[in-house]
């Protein structure tokens, strides 16, 4: 297993200054800082609700004080790889809603795309501004060795977590001013400005002025509500709910105290199915009736564009390296994790025979729910899961259990290595922008590989060192 901080009993170079600081100050000071940080988080009220647990809807997400650090050269590779993926995914989306060249070329099976639940027939032939569908691509990356990075999945539908990247950094700068003064750590604070720039750049064709941008949230009961309000606040735009918006004369308006105000760009944090009850789920009260008609006629831009979800489907994921070759004529800079598709008889046979070694996931699942982690499962769990796979093979993929890298982390017994992953947030609009940083998630339970905050995961600040 690769340890982010030490290799061959030596402290790795990017962690040197941090380790020196920790040794010079001792565990008491660090413990003191940890308590201070927790108080700060509570005060700010950064919370993350967990569905299905019936607990406090405003639970705190655990924050770990020990940062995860990348060197400048490591970051250069990630930066290029993530941007390459974001470009390929958007090209793919435009393609499947237009000429579907990649399918005609026989590279991706038609059924996988057109029969996919996330494929949106309602947007076929529509040109979103700048031909961009996924304006914020969150790429989940894991590491297994010094040079070995793998993409675990892509998130093309307004991925969450960026508020933690920003707030974690705020807290760290307050806790460790000396380190920030002495080290050259790339700042992340420009993210909201870059997001705003990206959103402005996708103003719809009918917009003839400085675009009016809003963040659309399902409301205060949503698990990521804190992030929605945080981003709106940071960008200085209104945070609206569906009930605040209405459609009139082929444009979208928000209800204000001075009367209707036109809206040009909607950064929505609600799913496709809910954004327009006239077009999608008729029982939705979160969306805006008629929104899709305005979108079609170029009266409003929606981020992410409806239909973007087909690009981050777990079965489509397996074809991303082929997309990169097909559209960009390049070799993928970041590798996929080798994946078995249970829809293929040979693959299914292999998966069923090796359940104890593999991680099996539902194709359409997210948040770490409904997956089987082979090495951590019992025979009975494996047998039950095998039945589910056999009932619906196309719904499952499997991957080897990767030896995810671990990063030193505060646990009850002191400091111990815990597995981490990494999600940078790539912005796509008039340009492709990537903030040097991201969200490092950590599996707090010993041996656990599940980093999702809904399953006992925590977060860390991520430092990118500059040259």
């Amino acid at each position, binding site marked *: 297993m690769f340890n982010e901080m030490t290799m061959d009993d030596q402290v790795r170079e990017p962690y040197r200054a941090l380790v020196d600081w920790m040794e010079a100050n001792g565990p008491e000071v660090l413990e003191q800082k940890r308590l201070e940080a927790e108080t700060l988080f509570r005060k700010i009220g950064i919370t993350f609700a967990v569905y299905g647990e019936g607990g406090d809807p405003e639970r705190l997400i655990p924050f770990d004080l020990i940062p995860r650090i990348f060197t400048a050269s490591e970051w250069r590779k990630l930066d290029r790889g993530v941007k390459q993926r974001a470009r390929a995914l958007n090209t793919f989306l435009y393609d499947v809603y237009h000429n579907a060249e990649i399918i005609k070329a026989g590279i991706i099976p038609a059924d996988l795309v057109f029969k996919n639940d996330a494929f949106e027939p309602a947007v076929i032939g529509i040109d979103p501004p700048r031909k961009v569908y996924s304006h914020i691509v969150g790429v989940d990356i894991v590491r297994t060795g010094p040079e070995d990075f793998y993409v675990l999945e892509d998130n093309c539908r307004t991925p969450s977590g960026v508020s933690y990247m920003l707030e974690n950094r705020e807290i760290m700068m307050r806790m460790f001013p000396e380190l920030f003064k002495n080290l050259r750590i790339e700042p992340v604070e420009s993210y909201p400005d870059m997001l705003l720039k990206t959103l402005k750049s996708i103003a719809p064709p009918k917009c003839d002025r400085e675009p009016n941008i809003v963040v659309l949230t399902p409301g205060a009961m949503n698990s990521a509500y804190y992030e929605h309000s945080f981003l709106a606040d940071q960008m200085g735009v209104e945070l*609206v709910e569906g*009930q605040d918006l209405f459609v009139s004369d082929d444009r979208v308006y928000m209800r204000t*105290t001075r009367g209707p105000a036109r809206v040009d760009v909607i950064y929505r944090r609600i799913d496709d199915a809910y954004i327009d009850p006239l077009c999608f789920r008729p029982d939705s009260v979160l969306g805006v009736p008629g929104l899709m008609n305005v979108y079609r006629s170029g009266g409003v831009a929606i981020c992410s564009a409806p239909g973007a979800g087909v690009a981050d489907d777990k079965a489509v994921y397996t074809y991303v390296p082929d997309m990169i070759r097909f559209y960009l004529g390049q070799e993928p800079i970041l590798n996929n994790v080798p994946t078995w598709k249970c829809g293929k008889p040979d693959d299914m046979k292999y998966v069923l025979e090796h359940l104890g070694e593999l991680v099996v996931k539902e194709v359409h699942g997210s948040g770490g729910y409904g997956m089987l982690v082979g090495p951590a499962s019992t025979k009975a769990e494996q047998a039950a899961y095998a039945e589910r796979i056999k009932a619906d093979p196309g719904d499952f993929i499997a991957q080897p259990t990767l030896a995810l890298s671990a990063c030193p982390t505060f646990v009850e017994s002191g400091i111990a290595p815990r597995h981490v992953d990494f999600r940078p947030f790539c912005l796509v609009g008039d340009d492709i922008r990537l903030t040097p940083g991201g969200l490092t998630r950590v599996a707090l339970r010993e041996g656990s590989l599940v980093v999702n905050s809904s399953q006992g995961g925590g977060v860390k600040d991520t430092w990118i060192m500059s040259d």
Partner: protein
Amino acid sequence: MLSRTADNLFWLSRYVERAENMARLMEMGYRMALMPAVGNGNRSEWESVLSASGCHAGYDPDAPLRQEEVANFLIFNRDNPSSIINCFEYARANARAMRTAITAEMWEALNNALMELRRPSMHNLAKNELPEFIDWVKKQGSLFRGATDSTILRNDGYDFIRLGTFIERADNTARLLDVKYYVLLPETSMVGDGVDNYQWTTVLRAASSLRAFHWVYRDDYSPHRIAHFLILNPFSPRSLAHCAEQITQHLERLARHYGQRHDVHGQAVEMYSLLTQSAMDEIFSNGLHEFLNDFQARNGALSNAIAEAYYFGGQ
């Protein structure tokens, strides 16, 4: 600003003010109950508090009208929409629905108040030390208003917050005065005797106005003066006249800021003039209770007119 945000701000401050007002009503009931029984010995203070709170209809008709039961109903009952705990729950829910429109200090004031109020120990405090509990509630109101006053931008959001405060406060002062109406036995012989005067000073205490009253009128506790202080005196911070003045001013600010006037502006001026042009003799001879009823109706209509003018219910 978004109409929903304005609506939330308006009601947020109304709820905070209402929680405090419920506490003030109870303070008055508590003090009146310490007095020897009036006339035929009919002890009706807590029933009067209930009536004046506007929550009587929700009160279990079989439950005794004693301090413990009535106070519990007004503080902790979840089915009573105006109970103090519900006021804080609603206020905090409103705040959470628009975190970007209020400051961290305001959020903390509300959040802490609710977290403390949810503690079981607060039930004991309210049961055994009602005056102390009442002080706690009033303090939460002060903390919230102080945080608001010292941190929020003086934009339209501020005006909606202040409108909520003064609409609710005016309503409450009218209710406080009305408790007096309910408690006081109608026989003329009672008016002006020792008990009657004590009850009038209780109204002042509940309005935190006893000392202010001293400064203005010295020791003349005549019902006439006390009613004047709480209705017509523009310098008294809880008087109807002061509330109406503030409401008019904040509506004017909105009109200037938006460059739009609505019916509500005329209505507010009319309500304010009613208070600046009335005399106490006239109000008493036409009936204080009738005057207060009329005022509450106007005040309620004004609140609806604000909602209509700024599209609170959608447009």
